[in-house]
């Protein structure tokens, strides 16, 4: 039998509320993020260059969008 959407939403919401109530502990501690904070791990190390390459591709391909990335290892957006 397929689960009813309302049950799925209720389960997800319940799980989320449970998580927020007990406050999720980060499993990678801030002092363990030195490798993630290395510039080589940044999604968007050179934003201008990436925007330029996106522009080149979008001018020649049918596809567009959903490129790039936000956030990173150092927790500094």
């Amino acid at each position, binding site marked *: 039998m397929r689960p009813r959407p309302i049950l799925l939403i209720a389960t997800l919401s319940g799980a*989320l509320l449970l998580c*927020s109530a007990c406050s999720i502990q980060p499993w990678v501690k801030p002092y363990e993020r030195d490798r993630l904070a290395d510039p080589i791990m940044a999604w968007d190390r050179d934003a201008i*260059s990436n925007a330029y390459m996106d522009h080149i591709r979008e001018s020649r391909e*049918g*596809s567009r*969008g959903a*490129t*790039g990335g936000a956030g990173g290892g150092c927790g500094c957006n």
Partner: protein
Amino acid sequence: MSHKHIFARAAVIAALLLIRSTIADVLPDNRADVFYSKYSGGGMDITGYSATARAKITENFAVEANYFVDKISGASIDVLSQASTIKDERKQKSGTLEYLHDKTTYTASYISSVERDYISETASFSLSQSMFGDLTTLTLGFADTHNTVGENNGTADAPNVAWVGHALSRAYSGGLSQIITKNFIAGVNVQVITDAGYLANPYRSIRYLVSTDVNPKGYALASQVYPDTHTSTAVQVQAKYYLPYRAAVTALYRYYTDTWGVVGNTYELDYTHPIRDKWIFEGRVRYYKQSAASFYSDLFPFADSQNFTARDQNLAALDNTTIGAKVTYAFLPDGWRIFKRGTVTADVSRIRFNYLDFRNIKDFGLPQYEPGDEPLYQFSATVYQLYLSMYF
């Protein structure tokens, strides 16, 4: 931990946004960049110059300004087949404001791009939220674009631009970046873009079969007719892994689909390898493949054979492969005057384009090749980039 508000039946994303911690984030460093680029391929040469500066006014508030000039010369396959050349310049200005409050960064920006036959203005807003002890970053964005499309009926040196239409575009995006382990980070981006208005490229034409009595080439050209609306959805998943030694690999995949019938798949693999704190080397391979739009044809059987008609090579079935390399050199490690450090970067990419149902009618035709039997079009392009970044 700040207060958690509980809304009955709240959407998952809204609920996620409420979970916040007290460690404050920081905005990126002040930075100034000068950028040079050159694209050569397919009969076109495009040279770009750009200057960007970003500065924090306070710890929570930053501004960024960018100016970009593209100089375009040459003639692509479509204008070559109609024996005319292009010479144009595109000037793009953008301004961005960033505000950081606790774990949320709000960004508002405005971009204006002006060519003599194309004007585009975009206003956008996004917010980025760190949560779960900064293991997760959620980003939501919206952009509104207004384009004015013109056609140069004169020549490259004596333009005579007629404005042919407007197009409106709205982009909705969401992204999630997740730290998985101390060596592994993954992310997913989704973007839906809707367009309405004049969406065709006025310089590109369809062709349809005619008798050689009418035209010795065996075909005639006519204007493209596009639908007035277009909606696309793109989903990209990406992962970055820090290797056992100091280097990183990035893999990404993007799936694209739209209401015109184009389905695109992008695959990319990057390898980044620093040497001490002075050099960063990067190599990348990218492969892209798409199917044709439902109303695309290289050769229509007769004039007005269907409601919508296109022979724009961007809507043809195609694939392309990119091989690229980049090197970054860091200097002034101890700073100089107001600057904390600097980097200079050189980047070169080689792209091979193969069209699977778009034929080269500029170089081939009767009597050697019947219409529709000409060799498929293909070309290679090289993209050079050189930039200097100063952090202060």
